């Protein structure tokens, strides 16, 4: 029994391996192999027409493909790395590491080097490694079957292989960047090794103020709405925290592992650095503006209660508590209790509870002798109101109502040359007062409203299925370090061509998760890979002369 898998040192070669050794002539022949690839494209034959020419062409193609598939990979033993396939873990453990692939492929764990299945198969395909299983090297076909199998789909492998061949560095998607953008900017990642950061877990991490990086791995399919509230929640405590930091308080705050209300603190050693420069990206500023707006509205509400007597007040009478007797048809109060004594003048004593029986009073419902009803009369006075514009429903007190009506009065257009257009039943969609700029007019004419994905994501329903981002892609870079990959240049999601297209909610969710890194969707159609991306573009709505 051989315990060590270091086969290079073994003297006893199995007979199969002996047969794999090539003679010198064969090696030379191999080197000069015909490397032409059959041409792709050309005119398409739509249907079999039974001709011999077509048949021959087809047969030629088939034999070519078979030959290609059967191509052997030849390499010096000394150049080949070796790995062992571990079925239970689904990883290949590298025993002999030759060549430069370890620079950007593979990971290590507890001193041992491991390869993911797609990496292992790719390296096998590119003739850099031999993977052993049960002490026997695996053939390519076997490798595909065994290693890829259930763990990595064919499409994912194809994408991996394609991009790797092009030179990109791909790693499996890490949902969390262990170092935030800010920490990288202050080069904190140089000082704290990644392992320590991973070990410490998230408790010592300064959460980035971007929404995407705040998503934990558990939240794969959160709907947009809690995300949005989460963001604002996080922002407020985060901003409060920044003030705490500035005042140099060093108290660490307990971190709860729940997603909703997480409060983070800084390890003591880093406060001094944090105090210095708190720069915010554009997104942060947007968040800040949103928070400021929220603060302002809260302040206004507070003001309303304390305002002077006659300045219009925001609060209105609460008629659910104050019941004025009403015998109208739609009044739902049928009994009014005896009012308490302090509300009544001395000498007045109400003896009975007031019972309202709406049918008991016959209240003059007969029609007038002549003349139009009030509604007809009013419709000539008041121009046709759009429902959302109706100040009566929208306003909460007289000040708002008058403001809205005042705005309407300007539009009343008794002196406008186009006033006649509004006199009939069919009125124009656009009012002259709307003509401030092209954008305003276009917004009035739009039937389908544009939505901005970042702002409106909370109103989207949950995506039908959950999809994970497959790979983080880095540009070919000699400075790439596996221990500190940094922010990827791209992220890729893999899909089969036959699968349904992702719905808007899914796109938005994944885009958010991946932002600010662009997300590509790789759609694989039998080996042909197309890359798609969804970016938001605004059609121009204005023009300037």
């Amino acid at each position, binding site marked *: 029994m051989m315990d060590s898998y270091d086969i290079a040192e073994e003297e006893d070669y199995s007979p199969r391996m002996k047969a794999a050794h090539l003679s010198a002539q064969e090696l030379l022949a191999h080197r000069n192999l015909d490397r032409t690839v059959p041409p792709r494209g050309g005119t398409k034959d739509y249907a079999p027409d039974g001709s011999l020419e077509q048949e021959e062409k087809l047969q030629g193609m088939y034999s070519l493909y078979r030959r290609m598939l059967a191509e052997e990979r030849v390499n010096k033993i000394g150049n080949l790395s070796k790995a062992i396939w571990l079925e239970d873990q689904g990883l290949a453990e590298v025993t002999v590491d030759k060549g430069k692939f370890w620079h950007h492929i593979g990971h290590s764990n507890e001193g041992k080097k491991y390869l993911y299945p797609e990496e292992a198969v790719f390296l096998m395909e590119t003739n850099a490694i031999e993977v052993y299983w049960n002490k026997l090297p695996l053939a390519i076909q076997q490798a595909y079957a065994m290693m890829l199998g259930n763990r990595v789909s064919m499409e994912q492998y194809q994408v991996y292989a394609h991009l790797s061949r092009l030179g990109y560095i791909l790693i499996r998607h890490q949902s969390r960047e262990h170092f935030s953008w800010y920490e990288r900017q202050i080069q904190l990642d140089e000082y704290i090794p990644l392992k320590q950061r991973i070990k410490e877990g998230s408790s010592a991490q300064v959460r980035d103020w971007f929404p995407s990086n705040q998503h934990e791995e558990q939240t794969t399919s959160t709907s947009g709405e809690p995300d949005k509230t989460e963001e604002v929640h996080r922002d407020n405590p985060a901003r409060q925290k920044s003030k705490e930091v500035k005042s140099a308080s060093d108290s660490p705050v307990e971190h709860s592992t729940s997603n909703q209300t997480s409060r983070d603190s800084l390890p003591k050693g880093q406060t001094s650095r944090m105090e210095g420069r708190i720069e915010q990206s554009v997104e942060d500023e947007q968040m800040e503006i949103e928070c400021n707006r929220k603060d302002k509205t809260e302040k206004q509400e507070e003001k309303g*209660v*304390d*305002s*002077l*007597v*006659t300045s219009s*007040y925001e*609060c*209105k*009478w609460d*008629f659910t*508590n*104050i*019941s*004025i*007797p*009403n*015998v*109208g*048809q*739609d*009044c739902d109060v049928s009994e*009014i209790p005896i*009012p*308490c004594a302090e*509300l*009544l*003048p*001395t*000498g*007045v*004593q*109400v*003896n*009975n509870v*007031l019972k*309202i029986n709406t049918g008991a*009073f016959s*209240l*003059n*419902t007969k*029609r*007038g002798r002549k*003349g*139009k*009803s*009030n*509604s007809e*009369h*009013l419709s000539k*006075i008041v121009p046709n109101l759009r429902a959302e514009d109706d*100040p*009566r*429903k929208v*306003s*909460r*007190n*007289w000040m708002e*109502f*008058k403001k809205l009506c005042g705005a309407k009065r300007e539009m009343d257009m008794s002196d406008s040359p186009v006033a006649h257009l509004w006199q009939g039943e069919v009125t124009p969609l656009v009012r002259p007062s709307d003509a401030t700029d092209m954008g305003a007019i276009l917004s009035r004419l739009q039937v389908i409203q544009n939505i901005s994905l970042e702002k409106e994501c909370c109103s989207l329903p949950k995506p039908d299925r959950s999809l994970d981002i497959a790979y983080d892609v880095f540009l070919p870079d000699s400075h790439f370090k596996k221990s500190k990959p940094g922010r990827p240049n791209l992220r890729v999601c893999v899909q089969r061509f036959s699968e349904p297209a992702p719905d808007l909610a899914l796109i938005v969710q994944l885009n958010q998760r991946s932002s600010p890194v662009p997300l590509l969707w790789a759609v694989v159609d039998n080996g042909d890979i197309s890359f798609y991306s969804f970016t938001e573009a605004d059609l121009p709505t204005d023009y300037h002369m």
Partner: protein
Amino acid sequence: MAENKEEKKEDPKDQEFKLEKDTELRFEVETGGTITLELSEGMAEVFGTELVKNKKFTFGSGAKVAVFTWHGCKVVLHGRTEFAYVSKDTPMVMYVNTHAALEQMRQQAQDQGKRGPRVMIVGPTDVGKSTLCRLLLNYAVRLGRRPTFVDLDVGQGSIAIPGTIGGILVERPADVEEGFSLQAPLIYHFGHASPGANMELYERIIAKCADVFNQRCELNRQASVSGCIINTCGWVKGEGYRSILHAAREFEVDVIIVLDQERLYNDLKRDLPGFVKVVLQPKSGGVVERPQPVRRSAREDRVREYFYGVRQPLYPHSFDVKFADVSLYQVGAPALPDSCLPLDTQQENPYTKLVHIQPGAQIVHHVLSLSMADSLKDNLIDTNIAGFICVTNVDMERQVMTVLSPAPRPLPKRYMLLTDIRFMDFR
């Protein structure tokens, strides 16, 4: 037979009524007669004003009175009545609950530093709007509030003579016989007995009145918290309806009480913003419909009361005024068709235009409003009124007119506005 008649004339019966709890005695005074009312036992009130026991209250011809009691009482009527009966079916409980709700709103306003409730009472003619106003005002004042009574009824107004709108700050309950004491009312000239004669002007002075009321509220916290109660005229269709909406908007009312008309209630609910509470309430069974002649004579009586007083006689002065000493104006001009105007000119609103009038025979027997304006720079329309005089005679030769005035000569102000109200001074 003659003896009988004489007996009847000399000796009207004393009617004693015993009233249970929550009942009211309704009676109307015969034309030409007077009635004396006395409360002998218990407690009672007349439209919210408590009756003092053993005091005699006198009501003149045509007066319609209802005496209501919460506790039970005994009342003695002395004199001839058209009718007098006791009724159990009154909406007083509803009205008092309304008052309680308004009082709650006032308390809330006081605690929270807000504005007090502004109530408007609308309904067709002869449903008891003025009475309900009086009731709510009395109850409020009895609790120590200082509500403002705004009367927009130009036909049967109770603050000044017909043809005006006005407001008073109520500080005492209304007198049983005389109504609210009219110290320092705010009056605006309208000039006609019906708002339809000049709707533009009507809406404009309503706006001005509301403006002044708001200013008062800013200065006087008590008045602001107590709110106001607005009485409207009985015109509820078409343009009248529109004027109700306009008044509601100008005064920024919080509650509208619709008396006795379901259609108006539904229309108001639909047309007013959602934060205004509109309620429908029944009219009292004691409300009597007044036909046109009665209303006309009621108007004349109001003007007469202005000059000659209600119970305490007032002694107006009659003196001559030279034409040169006064400037007389009329509000409203006939609208010119556009074809009469030169090109490029636009007609200013004819309804609120001031037209200078030369005093002449056409102003005899008309009541004139004396404006508080000191010069023409103050817009006469928007200035409140100091008082009224009535032209009894015009002498074109001497360029002098004889006027009946509540105060002695000389007239305090120079600018006057002509009204449509006519008053024949027979005494």
